[in-house]
């Protein structure tokens, strides 16, 4: 704690560092209290494993290679599903966003489908695609396609008409308008969609893997339930959290790079 005290006295970078790390203090405190309560016997391990147990199990699962194996399977599913979702969502958004006819063709249908809770399609997907990889990937793809479509479509339509007009007075062709004005203008919105899609991707994966799988982090968690291993379940949850956070972080870094022109990024 002495570091924190020292840093408040150093003006610029030091206090900045302290402010950055200060927000991690409350969750840390919760973990400490949780461990204390578990050690004191206040929380039975069948209800909730202690942080120390979880850490031990985590290390064990990693060294045995079991967790990395399941993790790779899950990552593969998310990557494939997300990839398909992005490609399809982007294609639809470009078709609908760049032409009236495309909008008439696609938008109403997609807006209707969007209102459907897509996880409700799981039984149907199992009937159609069986219980292999296909229904899991399809579920991720379907779930991620909508946020990509919606935000990119809105982004394209939301590009300032005055900039497009300026572009045409500069003699830009339609292709150049798209390349230099419309698509970069839609990017901020599309990146919000990407971040949202990543969240949906994990959610669909959790559901898909828990219902029917023989590998993946979801499978690991579900089989742990059968043996009342709350420690393994919690390791699974922890892994999900880390994955979600890192995905979000990747998009943040991406935003910082490609949206460097925005005032919010210019300030820092």
């Amino acid at each position, binding site marked *: 704690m002495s570091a924190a005290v020292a840093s408040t006295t150093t003006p610029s970078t030091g206090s900045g560092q302290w402010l950055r790390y200060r927000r991690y203090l409350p969750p840390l405190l919760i973990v400490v209290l949780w461990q204390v309560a578990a050690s004191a016997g206040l929380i039975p391990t069948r209800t909730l494993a202690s942080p120390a147990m979880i850490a031990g199990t985590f290390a064990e699962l990693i060294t045995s290679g079991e967790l990395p194996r399941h993790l790779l399977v899950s990552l593969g599913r998310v990557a494939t599903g997300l990839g398909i979702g992005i490609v399809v969502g982007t294609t639809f958004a470009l078709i609908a966003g760049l032409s009236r006819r495309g909008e008439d063709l696609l938008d109403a249908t997609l807006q209707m489908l969007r209102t459907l809770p897509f996880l409700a399609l799981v039984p149907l997907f199992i009937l159609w695609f069986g219980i292999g990889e296909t229904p899991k990937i399809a579920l991720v793809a379907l779930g991620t396609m909508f946020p990509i479509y919606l935000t990119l479509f809105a982004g394209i339509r939301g590009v300032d008409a005055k900039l497009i*007009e*300026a*572009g*045409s007075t500069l003699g830009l062709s339609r292709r150049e308008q798209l390349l*230099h004005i419309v698509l970069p203008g839609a990017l901020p919105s599309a990146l919000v969609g990407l971040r949202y899609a990543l969240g949906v991707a994990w959610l669909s994966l959790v559901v898909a893997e828990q219902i029917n799988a023989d590998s993946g982090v979801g499978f690991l968690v579900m089989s742990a339930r059968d043996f009342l291993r709350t420690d393994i379940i919690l390791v699974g949850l922890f892994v999900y959290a880390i994955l979600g956070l890192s995905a979000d972080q990747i998009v943040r870094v991406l935003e910082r790079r490609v949206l*460097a*022109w*925005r005032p919010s990024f*210019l300030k820092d």
Partner: protein
Amino acid sequence: MNAHPALTARQHPVVQVSNLVRSFGQGSNVLDGLDLTIRSGEFVALLGRSGSGKSTLLRTLAGLDEAPAGTVTVPAERAVVFQEPRLIPWKRVWANVALGLRTADARERAAAALTEVGLNHRLDAWPLTLSGGEAQRAALARALVREPKLLLLDEPFAALDALTRLKTQGLVASLWRAHRPAVLLVTHDVDEALLLADRVLILDQGRIGFDLHVNLERPRRHGQPAFSSLRSRLLRELGVEEENPDEPVEELRAPARSRAPAASATRENHAVWAASTDALARS
């Protein structure tokens, strides 16, 4: 007195408009049989009430309005500066200026144009970091780098604070002297029109209702006797009663002024604004 180059040579017309008619929806004609000729290198200012169709005319000349009736002849080499700079926020300043240039030396040309407007130190800046005046100068550079035969300016100074406006007006005058495009400047500021233009037109009821040749020596100044008398004449034509000829006429100037605080949102503009009020207080 034919000292002015634009008046000495009987130059060929670059803009010829005849019987231009434009209406929106079921409304009456905004432009109603308008005729207009602008000669090469001529600086024309267009005055008119708000809503009289000045921007509509300018947009037609810019090729942004696709539905007018009548004949419009304009050069292919034309450029527009609007009231807002309309820089593309995700392109650095030099790339904004170079946008649409298809030569290998686009960056050098952009840099040269930006140097001319005094922005050579901001080539790699993001547009949103520019002050209002800088952004408008970048927009001028972006227009001039195309070497237009016709430069269309739609109230380009209206959103600038008073001091920046004066400086930018001076810049436009010197750029025009250096490059000699024909200029159509839409404005609602009589002084600005008289300061800059060879001819001042008034748009009224969908036509050019008044066409005044300004035979004043340059550089011009407010308060010169000839300036004041032309000013009174224009104000009369615009239907504004002049109570005290030395006072600015609020009906006409108020819109431009009321916009200034909005532009002064950026820090630099604040500074300029403060400087100008300081100067006023001291004088």
